[in-house]
């Protein structure tokens, strides 16, 4: 018995370290309300967890009695989760807005959210899936609501209400699915879904759709995207950045795992996915066109990006999944980078309007340059990382015969160019006027540097990332 647990723990050390570190941070926070100690401890925790993650081998047997799996697929997502937390931490350090109300609790919740994120991609059991989603959601609501102002509270409330409904619907779907299959573990589910679907065709499909709603909500898939702009706008920028990347990535991981479990139903589900994929990117892009607030613009941009990511799922092939993961990694860097730029601008100008970017090339050349890099990468211009991701995604769609999706994606890329280039236009083509030069913030520049370097380097030399994707063998 304890042998099983010990074995299981061997694969789970990163999460254990993260949880323990979070508790320690929480404790120290009680003593030093505003000191640097919690922050340092957080970094130590993250470092230790990352180190543990490097030591974690890919195990084929599922730890904790099969409740979770620590395969190559989840390993990548765990890295994404850790990376997101780390970059968010950097941005928090740089953000005056957050530092003003930053407390140990904040950091602890952030670290614990990391545990939730990792669990999401490891989940191999309906309960674990639900639990981890709730874990991430609850910490998300709290992080959004943390700043001591009405806007944050309002955003948190909205986020909470939408999220609660979505997860409740999902739970209900899970209950129905269980009722028709008598299976809670994913492998078991995979075996029993076929007979169940034969016996209760409508019931199973309904259950699956209810179940997918929760995940669709997390990845801001249209029509479950409506919370996104409000929550991002309300949240402090670093948190918005985190929400735009980490839960989304984890939800994609879980979604893929779910769908590979429900593979026999894919034929029935894929029309939904292909149409919603097109809808998501189109709507995200079109609405982003009309935005004048940088946070909202980025929010809609992330919706559109989710649409691109969904292509990987729509394709339903191993290549598709690999492309999705590749794009997620790219997305991690470029989206965080874009948010980091926004943090720098919003923090120092106090304005969330796009006009705050005016003349940035003279006010903060390095920042502007990095920002261009991220925007171009988001727009999918080679040789940046984002392009590589898109290249694979489009290729996967074509390979799967989803020409319509690929064409829609291409048209959307052209539309999206408008609002990305619009920011570039403001930064470089417009004169700064009265606006002040920006002061460089070291932590932020570190975050920017890391993201920019990754965006450029992996764009030029993607083969290393591609080799990480090799182990992914999930098929929908």
């Amino acid at each position, binding site marked *: 018995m304890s042998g099983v647990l010990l074995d299981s723990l061997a694969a789970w050390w990163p999460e254990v370290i993260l949880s323990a570190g979070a508790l320690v941070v929480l404790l120290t926070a009680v003593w030093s309300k505003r000191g640097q100690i919690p922050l340092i401890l957080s970094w130590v925790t993250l470092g230790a967890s990352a180190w543990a993650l490097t030591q974690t081998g890919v195990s084929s047997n599922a730890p904790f009695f099969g409740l979770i799996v620590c395969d190559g697929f989840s390993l990548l997502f765990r890295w994404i989760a850790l990376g997101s937390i780390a970059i968010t931490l950097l941005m928090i350090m740089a953000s005056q807005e957050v530092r003003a109300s930053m407390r140990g609790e904040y950091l602890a919740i952030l670290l614990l959210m990391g545990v939730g994120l990792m669990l999401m991609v490891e989940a191999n059991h309906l309960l674990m899936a639900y*639990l981890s989603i709730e874990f991430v959601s609850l910490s998300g609501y709290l992080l959004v609501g943390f700043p001591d102002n009405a806007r944050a509270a309002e955003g948190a*409330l*909205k986020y909470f*209400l939408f999220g609660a409904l979505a997860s409740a619907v999902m739970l209900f779907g899970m*209950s129905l699915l*269980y009722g028709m299959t008598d299976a*809670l573990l994913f492998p078991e589910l995979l075996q029993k879904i076929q007979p169940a679907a034969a016996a209760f065709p409508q019931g199973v499909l309904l259950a699956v759709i209810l179940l997918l709603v929760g995940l669709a909500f997390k990845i801001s898939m249209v029509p479950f995207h409506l919370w996104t702009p*409000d929550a991002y706008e309300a949240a402090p920028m670093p948190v918005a950045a985190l929400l735009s990347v980490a839960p989304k990535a984890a939800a994609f991981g879980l979604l893929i795992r779910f769908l590979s479990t429900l593979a026999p139903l894919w034929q029935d589900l894929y029309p939904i996915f292909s149409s919603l994929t097109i809808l998501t990117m189109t709507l995200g892009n079109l609405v982003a066109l009309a935005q004048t607030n940088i946070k909202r613009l980025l929010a809609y941009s992330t919706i559109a990006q989710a649409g691109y990511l969904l292509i990987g799922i729509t394709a339903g092939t191993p290549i598709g999944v690999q492309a999705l993961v590749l794009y997620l990694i790219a997305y991690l860097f470029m989206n965080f980078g874009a948010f980091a730029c926004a943090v720098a601008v919003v923090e120092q100008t106090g304005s969330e309007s796009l006009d705050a970017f005016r003349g940035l090339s003279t006010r903060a050349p390095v920042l502007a340059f990095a920002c261009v890099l991220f925007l171009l990468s988001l727009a999918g211009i080679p040789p940046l990382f984002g392009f590589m991701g898109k290249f694979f995604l489009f290729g996967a769609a074509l390979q799967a015969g989803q020409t319509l999706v690929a064409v829609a994606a291409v048209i959307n890329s052209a539309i999206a160019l408008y609002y990305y280039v619009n920011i570039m236009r403001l930064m470089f083509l417009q004169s700064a006027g009265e606006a002040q030069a920006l002061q460089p913030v070291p932590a932020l520049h570190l975050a920017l540097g890391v993201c920019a370097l990754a965006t450029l380097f992996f764009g030029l030399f993607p083969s290393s990332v591609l080799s990480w994707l090799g182990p992914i063998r999930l098929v929908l």
Partner: protein
Amino acid sequence: MTLRWFLLVSHALFCLGVFGMLTRRNAIAMLLSIELLLNAAGLNFVCFSRIFSNAQAQTIAFFVIALAACEAVVGLAIILSLSRHAKTVFADEAKLLSG
């Protein structure tokens, strides 16, 4: 006595919860509706656990209760925060966000 009737009840609870979510303007009232939703799901799990004689499904209902508590706590905290800042508990009256 058949499963169908239990399911009817749970579905009814679920849909009433949804109805509440859609009609209640007061955030706390919406919180109440969420509890209804979760209960409906819990009831389902217990029903099915009974059918399949699966103890694990029952424990899920247990976890659901715990998570419902967490949600209620977080939701209330947010509502309190909002009421302190915006002096309202009406979900659609908070209008600082522009969308």
